[in-house]
């Protein structure tokens, strides 16, 4: 349950970015979260409401885009997507794969804001 720490970091980071847009209202915060990032969307959503209260992010929506784990398979010489985290094997050839190319992301992709002209 470190989602509260994660959400606090989001609030901090978005608040800093808002300095460039004085008076703007945050409508949406979009995350890109890897399937191996060890965070649970439900917990993020739950903590988001609490942690954004009384901040410039209050009332905004949190959108979590989960990205799958992509590994490089040596024998196939290709990037392959894992269907489950229970087995790090290439879905094409069945070999074990250790070279991770995607899946640990924990990023704020973008924010949607409303500005008064």
């Amino acid at each position, binding site marked *: *349950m*470190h989602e509260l*720490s*994660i959400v606090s*970091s*989001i609030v901090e*980071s*978005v608040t800093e*970015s808002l300095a460039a*847009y004085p008076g*703007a209202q945050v*409508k949406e915060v979009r*995350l890109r979260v890897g399937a*191996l*990032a*060890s*965070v649970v969307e439900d917990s993020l959503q739950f903590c988001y409401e609490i942690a954004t209260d009384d901040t410039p992010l209050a009332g905004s929506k949190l959108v979590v885009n989960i990205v799958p784990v992509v590994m490089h398979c040596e024998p196939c010489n290709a990037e392959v997507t894992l269907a489950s*985290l*229970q*087995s*790090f*094997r290439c879905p094409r050839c069945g070999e*074990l*794969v*250790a070279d*991770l190319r995607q899946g*640990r992301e*924990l*990023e*704020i*992709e*973008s*924010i*949607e*804001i*409303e*500005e*008064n*002209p």
Partner: protein
Amino acid sequence: MTTRIVELRSGILKKNDELAAGLRQSFGQAGVLVLNLVSSPGTGKTAFLERTLRELLARGSRAAALVGDLETDNDARRLAASGAPVRQINTHGICHLDADMVSRRLDGWELAELDYLFIENVGNLVCPSSYDLGERVRVALLSVTEGEDKPLKYPTLFNSADAAVITKMDLAVPCDFNRELAIRNINEIRPGIRIFETSAKTGAGMDEWLEYLKKERDRGR
């Protein structure tokens, strides 16, 4: 009223990651091998570390440890009995260590005078995996009493590890521990990882582990 999308593309844990990268660089320059030990509560991280520290000191190596717990300095006192410098980090409810907590507890330690620095994380198999502490080697530990499928249950942590240590091997027989299955499961989640089968009580597997530590340390110099 105008709506605008602002692309940020920034890491949520950017501050931790930057701090950790700075720590890794200082550790590298000082020539100290830093390891982050992660497991569930009760796996025997402290007993394993206690034995590791004793054996390293007996071989003339210089080793120190930072130990994370929610409360109490029991583990630090236990580890200090080995003769190594040890400091406790109390997180007061936080379920993981972060780079800032580590950095603040290093004050006054001359890193260049150390060969090894062990960071014993808070007992937790989920949250510590998100936080880089600047370590060069992340060690995932599991004990024979926990079940062979632990790596399958916690793939995010096991997949991020550089080495795996099975502890309490002296209890393998009474626990009906299936070592082949445990090793297969670790490999299924983190193919090719080094696996050590150890007992802090009997000393089994410690020579191999110490040899690995020495190799890793020499590799970084």
